[in-house]
């Protein structure tokens, strides 16, 4: 429990000494400029391979063994391609927009505790920081669509802002139970909390919050089935239609980086970070003050962490290869009529779980079992309730009332 605060990088208070500067410089140049873009490059390779398997193809296999050098070839291609800016475009904003999106994705990674002592920074309000920096992304997307002076881009930007603003709400609301149980907004404290009380996804309200977080997260990063802002077949890639060369590459990088960020955050918030087993201090009890113990524990934590993130990424690819795109009105309905009420109910359930299980300060088997059974039934009831009410509401509305009506009032009146 105290391990997390024992290391400089995870202390809330940062002294601006030389060692901190060196640690931050290492994070900046090795992590943010080297490792994370590399991860993104190979995520693209993985996605192409996975999607190919789902479609009964082989995928990239020409450049290097198993096509492993394909991402490098792609990166070189993107960098040396000409960047074409349309003449009526707003030059400066056209340049700033992809940078804003990318910065938002990179900044979100700065609070993720990958292992003990391996968090770039640990502000006491890390969760709010995370939400704040990830809310800058939609602004960049909007500016990209607006500055391109292209109607498809503008349509994509409108869709993007509507979708991202709507899904931000359930995403934020679904993290409230986690902050409530840990009693802190710091991601490191949340990580420590799960070592004692089990992973947050493994109790009924936590599981519901986890599912909502994943759905809203997929919508936040514009993955199919929520990719209407960049629907290729409707609005030819939406907000980045007019981007080419490395400017497009920045959008591409930001999108895959956001997928990685959502995986990391879901792992930290709901799946106990890098811990391989719930209710066990296994790799942390290797830390006994010696360097070897720390390295061994961190190696295990980091490996398990990355495996969990890989699982999330795979699930996102899987969903993308399986589901078609949602219609925009159903997408909005789903956020506002299903996810938001469920989140609000779930906060009440989370408070009940806090009283039953977390309040005593340690896990008591009987209370834990009571909480699991009672809250499991209550959570299932809440889901049932929301779905049933929505079905009834939908049944009361006239047939085709949810069909989007385009055109003026006069056209509708004459129908």
């Amino acid at each position, binding site marked *: 429990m105290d391990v997390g605060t024992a290391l400089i990088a995870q202390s*809330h*208070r940062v002294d601006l000494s030389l060692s901190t500067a060196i640690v931050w410089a290492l994070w900046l140049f090795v992590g943010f400029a080297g490792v994370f873009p590399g991860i993104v490059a190979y995520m693209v390779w993985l996605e192409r391979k996975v999607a190919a398997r789902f479609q009964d193809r082989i995928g990239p296999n020409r450049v290097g063994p198993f096509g492993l050098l394909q991402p490098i070839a792609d990166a070189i291609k993107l960098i040396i391609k000409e960047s074409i800016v349309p003449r009526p475009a*707003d030059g400066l*904003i056209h340049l700033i927009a992809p940078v804003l999106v990318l910065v938002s994705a990179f900044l979100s990674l700065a609070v993720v505790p990958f292992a003990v002592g391996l968090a770039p920074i640990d*502000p*006491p*309000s890390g969760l*709010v*920081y995370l*939400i*704040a*920096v990830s*809310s*800058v992304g*939609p*602004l960049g997307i*909007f*500016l990209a669509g*607006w500055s391109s*002076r292209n109607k498809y881009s*503008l349509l994509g*930007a*409108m869709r993007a*802002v*509507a979708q991202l*603003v709507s899904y*931000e709400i359930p995403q934020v609301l679904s993290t409230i139970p986690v902050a409530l149980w840990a009693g*802190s*907004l710091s991601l490191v404290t949340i990580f420590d909390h799960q070592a004692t009380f089990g992973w947050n996804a493994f109790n009924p309200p936590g599981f519901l919050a986890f599912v909502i977080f994943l759905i809203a997260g997929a919508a936040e990063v514009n993955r199919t089935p929520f990719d209407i802002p960049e629907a290729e077949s409707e609005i030819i890639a939406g907000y980045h239609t007019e981007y080419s060369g490395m400017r497009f590459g920045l959008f591409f990088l930001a999108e895959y980086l956001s997928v990685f960020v959502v995986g990391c955050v879901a792992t930290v918030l709901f799946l106990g970070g890098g811990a391989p087993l719930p209710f066990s201090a296994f790799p942390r009890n290797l830390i006994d003050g010696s360097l070897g113990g720390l390295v061994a524990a961190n190696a295990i934590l980091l490996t398990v962490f990355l495996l969990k993130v890989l699982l999330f990424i795979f699930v996102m690819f899987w969903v993308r290869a399986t589901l078609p795109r949602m219609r925009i009105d159903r997408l909005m309905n789903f956020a506002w009529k299903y996810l938001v009420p469920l989140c609000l109910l779930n906060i009440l359930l989370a408070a009940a779980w806090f009283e039953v299980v977390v309040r005593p300060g340690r896990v008591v088997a009987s209370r834990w079992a009571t909480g699991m059974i009672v809250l499991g039934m209550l959570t299932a009831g809440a889901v049932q309730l929301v779905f049933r009410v929505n079905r009834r509401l939908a049944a009361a509305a*006239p047939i085709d009332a949810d069909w989007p009506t385009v055109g003026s*009032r*006069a056209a*509708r*009146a*004459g*129908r």
Partner: protein
Amino acid sequence: MARFLFLAIAALGLLAALGTVLARDLVRAGLHLVAFFFCVACLFVVLEAEFLAAAQVLIYIGAVAILLMFGIMLTRNAAGGEADLSGGWRVPAILAGLAVFAALAFGINNTVSPAGAGPWARVVERPALEPADAAWKAERSRAIDDMPRVVGEQFMTRYALAFELAGLLLTAALVGAVALAREDEAADSVAEPEPGAEARPPVATSPRPSTTTAP
């Protein structure tokens, strides 16, 4: 170092604020406003209030600025050219700005510092947090380590009135928005005959009679 940072950020913020007022293009003005909000967030960080900085970015850049952009896009020809933003409202706008400035200056000048902390206008070196011997120093250290809780407590106790007033204002805005939206909807439902629409009282302001028959 801290003073240099403050001056740099404040200068940038002033430039951004000027840009907001002087920009000829609505979206550019909005962008300058975003830059200004970001400078305010930076000032919060310099003051060791990173929760407030995050909240500033979240609320003002993540929500207000995006809604502003959305509003611009929905109400004007988004790809349209330049517009005279102030027009005849220049003088009232300047007056309102001066009034807000006066209110803020009065409020800041009459603010009550914690005991032993010295008045706000005096330049003091920021003392170390450890060891926290003075009571206000302990409070400052608590505020830095657990800022969300401290801010929440202050909202519920010392600033409860302001907090509630802001909530009331937002509720009024929300109700107004719903009322505006409902008016459109009511007009729609009269124009479009549907089962159940007859039960509703006819809207007097509707320009179209509700007797249109469906083919």
